[in-house]
């Protein structure tokens, strides 16, 4: 069984994400020790791959996802995203990377209140410098791709939980990123709606070829992914990969 995730592996040119010996500690109050959320994690994500990251609460999943999303820098070790070492990028370059190459989906949806679905989806395009007309067109197309073409003018409060998460997913894919990161995307949804949302993410993963990394502690959700990375106490406890079909 081929393993792409031993710490000794040289950087794989074909990876969209390469994580090497990453630790992340948080300073908490006066304690010199701090909290070690990650204690040495290494793995790669290939283009178009679908990976589930599982593990008990507090095992470091969200911390890891923030690093994969270029929202945060590791304490030690390196994170390469799309070929660039995150530690060496300026804040502006990191913002640009997040804007164009990464799409986030959050457990709490994080939609702007009192703002239409269309404007919510168009938000990343503003920071990408896309003009108003083109923004509306692309946002509408993204909403249609998630099956919400009939809800463009609705505000978040007028949408069901499942619909809100679909809007968030449309927003994540509107810039056509290479990486989709989802932190407990089904955590606030009932099972049936959660399944729909996962189905949508898988379809976008397959159709658009964006790598999909889903954090979950729901084993049923995790089981949908061909590859699972299990974290415990800030380390990779186990990795399981279905043999390619």
């Amino acid at each position: 069984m081929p393993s792409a995730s031993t710490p000794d592996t040289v950087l794989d040119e074909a990876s969209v994400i390469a994580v090497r010996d990453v630790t992340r500690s948080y300073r908490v109050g006066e304690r010199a020790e701090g909290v070690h959320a990650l204690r040495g994690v290494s793995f790669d994500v290939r283009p178009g791959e679908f990976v589930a990251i599982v593990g008990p609460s507090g095992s470091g999943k969200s911390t890891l996802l923030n690093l994969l999303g270029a929202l945060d820098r590791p304490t030690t070790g390196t994170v390469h995203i799309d070929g660039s070492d995150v530690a060496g990028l300026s804040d502006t370059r990191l913002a640009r990377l997040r804007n164009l190459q990464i799409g986030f989906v959050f457990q709490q949806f994080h939609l702007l209140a009192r703002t239409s679905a269309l404007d919510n989806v168009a938000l990343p395009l503003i920071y990408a410098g896309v003009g108003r007309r083109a923004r509306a067109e692309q946002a509408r197309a993204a909403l249609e791709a998630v099956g919400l073409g009939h809800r463009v003018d609705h505000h978040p409060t007028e949408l069901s939980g499942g619909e809100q998460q679909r809007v968030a997913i449309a927003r994540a894919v509107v810039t056509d990123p290479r990486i989709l990161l989802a932190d407990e995307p089904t955590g606030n949804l009932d099972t049936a709606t959660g399944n729909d949302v996962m189905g949508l993410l898988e379809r976008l993963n397959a159709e658009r070829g964006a790598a999909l990394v889903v954090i979950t502690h729901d084993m049923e959700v995790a089981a949908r992914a061909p590859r699972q990375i299990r974290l415990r106490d800030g380390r990779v406890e186990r990795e399981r990969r279905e043999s390619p079909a």
Partner: protein
Amino acid sequence: MSFRESVRVALTAIRANRLRSGLTVLGVVIGVMSVVLLVAVGSGARAVVTAGVEDLGSNLLLVAPGTFEFGQAPTRSQFTLGDVEDLSRQLGERARVAGSIASGERVRSDTGAAFTSVIGVTADFTDVVNRPIARGEFLNESDIATARRVAVLGASAADGLFGGIDPIARQITVGGLRYRVIGTVEPLGSALGVDRDSQVYIPLTAAQRLFGIRTIDTLFVRGADRADLDGVAETVEQVLGERFGSDEFSILSQDEILGVAGRILDTLTLVLAAIAGISLLVGGIGVSNIMLVSVSERTREIGLRKALGARTPEITRQFLVEAIVLCGIGGLLGAATGIGLSYVADRFTPVPAQVTGWSVALAFGVSVAVGVIFGVFPARRAGRLDPVTALRRE
């Protein structure tokens, strides 16, 4: 992101947070409104004073005791009737001279009573200070010489004391003594805050006896020829200079009175503007406060925007533009209400108000500046927020 885009994002955010935006704007609205309104009241007062002084006529010189400077305590007058007569003789055809003393007195008739201004005047007063006679006649030289107990009533004084009845030849009582009414004055309105129609005129000599003094408060000199007014003033100075020190009297022309009154009123206007400016400053601090609350309440929004690719300066700019746009809207609304209220005050209350362009421009400019100054701190704080921490916030 372009500047236009920043404004659009800011406007969207302002609309999405309507209530908070409204409250933020309110402080600025009140500040700008006060500036515009109070400066309008100051300017209105100035206009009224100017009109009042111009009403005196351009050929008039006022001779007052003391140096008549702003901040100087008024000096007791030493002028006497002899000075009026001397000046009259020296000036001859070139000018006419009158004198007056005034005091608030209780005036009664058979049908009414009023506390009003009783003025002792010389015979020329009617022409020199322009008191056209409506009925009967004015006081004459012999009335002055003999301190005869006769009186001339202003239009509203006549009305108040006698109602519709013709007051000529009727009696009034001033300070316990009876006076016979011999004339009434045309309605004149008020000038310099003085209701000229409520005045009661009696011979200067009778008034001196009534008030228990031998002096005259003010001398009035009306030149016959505008071109000779400086010459007349010189003669007055010479004649009085023989009797009084140069700091014991001053001669004021219409322009000089306007200058003194204008300086006082300009100071008043500035003080009003400064008070209003403070309220604008308080409005600005309010903006800063609410922007800080807004940044804190919208922490997750900021985290989200950063996760979606917003750079630090773009977030800072969004909040700064929000503050400026809010203050700009507040400035416009404040200027509009200030102008509206000034109009209402001028039209429907006794308070004169005249909106000045500079106060509107200044207040609006200051409100936008307030947006910049008080928006910077919260905006920078917003820009510096760490996206991970911001997104974790409940």
